[in-house]
């Protein structure tokens, strides 16, 4: 055993200098592109003290924006999780013609500009459209109201869950589901006891990404919301409006809150990963 030891070589063959340069580049990139802007946001928010920052968040319009953003995420994320699971299930567990086309269709929101998506929704549901006109007459406007914002958000965030699930479900195959069926379980029971536990980590990632984007979406929401302060202005819209009015403490305070919401999501994900490291490893080892 000992006499073969000297023949071992390090797996990487780069010189120490090259390694330091590469590591340095990576760290510098993260510092400049990620860390610095984050710090800048908080620095600007607190430029006139924490009191001014908190006060700017306390007014009616700011609170309304925060509430609206959380409400939109609370509606659109569970719906997209359900649709994403359904789509991934359908695509991976059944063979049918046009599968590739359906996958492309699921990806469509990634390739269409959110502004275009917003315009499409206005065209379909605006007061001048057939459906929209009727709904407005009934007292249920879609555009410039909550339903429009939810639809826009759901359109933009639709791919996240399905995209996370499809590769995992393809890799796992159908054998476990088939085994459960032969053991007498109904399709519904198979889903809850076999499929869902097997995809829970991918599902969690998908939901977290979907949530982050749902809270941060700007373009599509800007078009369909009408940007009515205190009514249809979400957090990103409010940040833009405040910034355009040179209310930089208020704008950056709101931006800091939005950033914190995103950081909480990330922390949650990391905490879950640490806590369930064994289960994760077991899932991949198999």
């Amino acid at each position, binding site marked *: 055993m000992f006499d073969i030891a000297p023949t071992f070589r390090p797996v990487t063959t780069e010189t120490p200098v090259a390694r330091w340069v590469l590591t340095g580049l990576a760290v510098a990139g993260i510092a400049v592109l990620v860390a610095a802007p984050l710090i800048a946001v908080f620095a600007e928010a607190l430029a006139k003290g924490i009191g001014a920052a908190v006060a700017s968040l306390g007014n009616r319009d700011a609170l309304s924006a925060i509430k609206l953003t959380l409400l939109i995420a609370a509606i659109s994320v569970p719906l997209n999780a359900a649709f994403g699971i359904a789509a991934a299930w359908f695509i991976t567990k059944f063979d049918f013609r046009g599968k590739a086309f359906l996958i492309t269709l699921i990806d469509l929101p990634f390739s269409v500009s959110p502004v275009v998506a917003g315009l499409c929704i206005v065209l379909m549901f605006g007061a001048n459209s057939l459906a929209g006109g009727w709904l407005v007459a009934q007292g249920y406007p879609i555009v410039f109201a909550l339903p429009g914002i939810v639809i826009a958000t759901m359109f933009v965030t639709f791919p996240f869950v399905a995209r996370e699930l499809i590769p995992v479900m393809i890799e796992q195959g159908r054998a476990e589901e088939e085994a*459960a069926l032969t053991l*007498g379980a109904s399709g519904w029971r198979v889903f809850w006891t076999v499929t869902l536990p097997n995809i829970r980590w991918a599902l969690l990632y998908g939901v977290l990404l979907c949530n982050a984007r749902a809270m941060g979406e700007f373009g599509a929401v800007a078009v369909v919301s009408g940007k009515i302060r205190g009514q249809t202005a979400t957090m990103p819209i409010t940040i833009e409006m405040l910034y355009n009015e040179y209310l930089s403490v208020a704008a950056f305070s709101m931006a800091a809150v939005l950033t914190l919401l995103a950081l909480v999501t990330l922390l949650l994900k990391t905490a879950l990963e640490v806590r369930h490291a064994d289960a994760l490893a077991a899932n991949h080892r*198999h």
Partner: protein
Amino acid sequence: MRIEIDEISKQFGVTAALHPVSLAIPSGALVALLGPSGSGKTTLLRILGGLEFPTSGRVLFDGQDATGLTVQDRRAGFVFQSYALFRHMTVFDNIAYGLAARPRASRPPKAEITRRVTKLLELIQLPDIGSRFPSQLSGGQRQRVALARALAIEPRMLLLDEPFGALDAKVRKELRQGLRDIHDETGLTTVFVTHDQEEAMELADLVVVMSMGRIEQIGKPQDIRARPASAFVQSFISA
């Protein structure tokens, strides 16, 4: 249970996986479906288990038409090629799955489930592994757990897809005997798929040689050896 396969065919799109084939399996037999890959043997097994439905023809269980019977209603104990154990469940929960999945009226009480799982673990000679996860088992142990899980539902027949395919030669020999013992003890009609002629000849009462979606020969191992019905059978069993 007696199984009859009456002129079963299966098309996948334009390709025919099975040309009309017929086969009668007597109750309590241990049957091997033997053939190279692409011979249609796994398709036939999956049709028996209700995981695949034939394009034409009928399946009869004890003379009753079972062609349209759902996979759940067939009560076929199925052992999959890579065992398909539920990776997030313990061995105990894997074996208990079929019992716990029964509708409330026919579901045994918890204590009874525990008793039966314990008995099955003894039957496969792995009494102490109930709390382990599939990823912590060897290939041979996984195969036996898959067998116990299939037996737990008190199946009417046992269907096994390449049950020894993923194992090394020594374990394979042991488990062959294990399957023979379990078959003799339970008296279940058992059908297994294999591409290994030695395995089929050694283990089965009745060997069905298949090629290109057709049955080439049906017979006892010694008869097939003595009188191969076609050039294909001749070359396949001497390989």
